[in-house]
């Protein structure tokens, strides 16, 4: 019983982390119509930037949450630069854009290896969340519960942003029909930069938030990117609800698969993606952004 309960909490936690990673991926995919293959790299960059901030820059040691916000901003700026300088040159050529993101992901992986070395770096759990909560015989780490809370807060904030703000309305219009959005005077190309920066920032934020659970190591980008892909394909591109439900589902499939059927873990992870792509290419929640 305790085993199942723990596995369930771990699955929801991992799902929450996946949501932070894949919400931006989904919006970028929905708006720009390309899978951003640097998204795993953004996650990794955020995590590595975070470790540097936590260990202190110029004698100033950052608090965990401050570091998470700072590295989210740093990665967001990098994302915006990449969109402006590289992807913008290839506007309209989706294939070329995908290939460029693939090339950049190679470069980022190597730069991180150069900057932070090949050894895994563990991230200390933020002060105050080191404890555990007892629930009957089961013991839950407080930090994992906090990650779930953070994911829910971000989901609500993103939902409010998309539903209630002018920017959100423009993004929805752009996802729905970019040409018509242009016709009514929305600067869709500007939206591209904003959404790309937002998605990259979220991924960078998720990188450090995931640090205490996953630690940071070379190759984490290649581990996370396929997961984000699976989530977004399952949920439907450009759909916030889809990426939320998809994250939780994949969180469960991933954790239960690793625990119960380790030999076939990746098979049962990617099988739903293939099935959805083949049977329902728009995803489970495709066509509805919220």
């Amino acid at each position: 019983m305790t085993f199942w309960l723990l596995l369930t909490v771990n699955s929801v936690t991992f799902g929450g982390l996946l949501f932070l990673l894949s919400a931006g991926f989904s919006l970028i995919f929905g708006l720009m119509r390309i899978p951003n293959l640097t998204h795993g790299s953004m996650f990794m960059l955020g995590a590595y930037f975070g470790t540097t901030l936590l260990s202190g820059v110029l004698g100033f040691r950052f608090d965990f949450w401050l570091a998470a916000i700072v590295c989210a901003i740093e990665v967001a700026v990098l994302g915006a630069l990449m969109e402006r300088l590289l992807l913008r040159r290839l506007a309209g050529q989706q294939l070329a854009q995908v290939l460029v993101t693939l090339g950049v992901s190679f470069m980022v992986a190597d730069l991180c290896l150069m900057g932070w070395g090949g050894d895994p770096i563990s991230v200390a759990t933020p002060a105050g969340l080191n404890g555990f909560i007892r629930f009957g015989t089961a013991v839950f780490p407080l930090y994992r519960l906090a990650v779930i809370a953070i994911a829910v807060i971000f989901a609500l904030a993103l939902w409010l942003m998309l539903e209630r703000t002018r920017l959100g309305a423009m993004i929805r219009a752009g996802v729905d029909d970019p040409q018509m959005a242009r016709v009514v005077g929305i600067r869709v190309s500007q939206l591209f930069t904003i959404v790309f920066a937002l998605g990259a920032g979220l991924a960078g934020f998720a990188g450090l938030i995931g640090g205490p659970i996953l630690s940071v190591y070379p190759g984490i980008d290649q581990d996370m990117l396929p997961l984000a892909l699976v989530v977004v394909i399952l949920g439907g591109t450009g759909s916030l609800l889809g990426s939320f439900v998809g994250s939780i589902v994949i969180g469960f499939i991933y954790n239960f698969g690793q625990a119960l059927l380790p030999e076939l873990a990746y098979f049962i992870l990617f099988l739903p993606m293939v099935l959805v792509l083949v049977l329902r290419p728009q995803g489970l929640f495709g066509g509805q952004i919220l």
Partner: protein
Amino acid sequence: MSKLVLARGLAALIAVIGLAVVPYAIGEVYYVNIASQVLLYAIFALGLNILVGYAGLVSLGHAGLFGIAAYVAAYLLVAGSGHVLAIAAALLASLLATAGFAALSLRSTGITFIMITLALGEIIWGLAYRWISLTNGDNGITVPARPAPFGIALGSARAFYVATLIVFLIAIVASGIFVRSPFGAALRGARDQPRRMSALGYHVWMIRFWAFMFSGLLSAIAGVLFVYYNQFISPQALALTASAESLLMVISGGAGTLLGPVVGAALVVIVKNVVSAYVERWNFMLGAIFVAIVVFMPEGLVPGIARLTGALWRSRGKANLPMTAGPQQ
């Protein structure tokens, strides 16, 4: 016309002779091995090019097809079967997998096609990585010995190079015949104008399916050569990075040309092996080359250089060109 054919034939003959004397011209075993790698990856890239260049379908899962052949061959060889059986079973298994890949992915084109092939490739990689009782997981499978076809042992670097060269020549000639055949024309038609081709009575899906099968066959052959070359196979050869690298070979050299993938394979293998001895950050270089080619020379090196030299030529002798150039001849 016939002069052109003659010139081309002569160039091809010189190239083949050049390739054949490579192991004798360069004495060092290390470089002969690099040359073998270039050729075996060139076969892989030729296979992927059929799909990427001539069918217009970009696959990010081809390392899976390459890997299935390699794993089946390795598994059977370790189990003690003969080389003929192992190779035949490897090619057959990979072709079956290719048919599965094609059946699932050809429902779509464009980005969705990329995603389906990527997911399928990841499934194959995941099985190789995690199905430890079958594949030995990350530790991989070590193959005892290279074969000795017709009594010629392929243990030495030179002998293996010559064998790879022969397979490579067959592969490139077969590719050339394939793309120049009426079927190849239909394939390009299906790439450029699928609806018109349908309207003309061509079965576009079936054309793409057989192109996929041919592509899978070449990938499988490369996979078998790979496992004999390294005498070892591990999940790394099947990872997304491997698929991306093979795509880089095709696109950097020039998708939709016969020589492009060969040049691309040489570029990638040389950067990976030779340049890495001098430059520590070769992975960064590989990514940078990829980005630069996509941004500045999207058609690839071979057509790109042809275009640049053509432009140079034209700017020198502007006067007589407008009439002679062009497709009317």
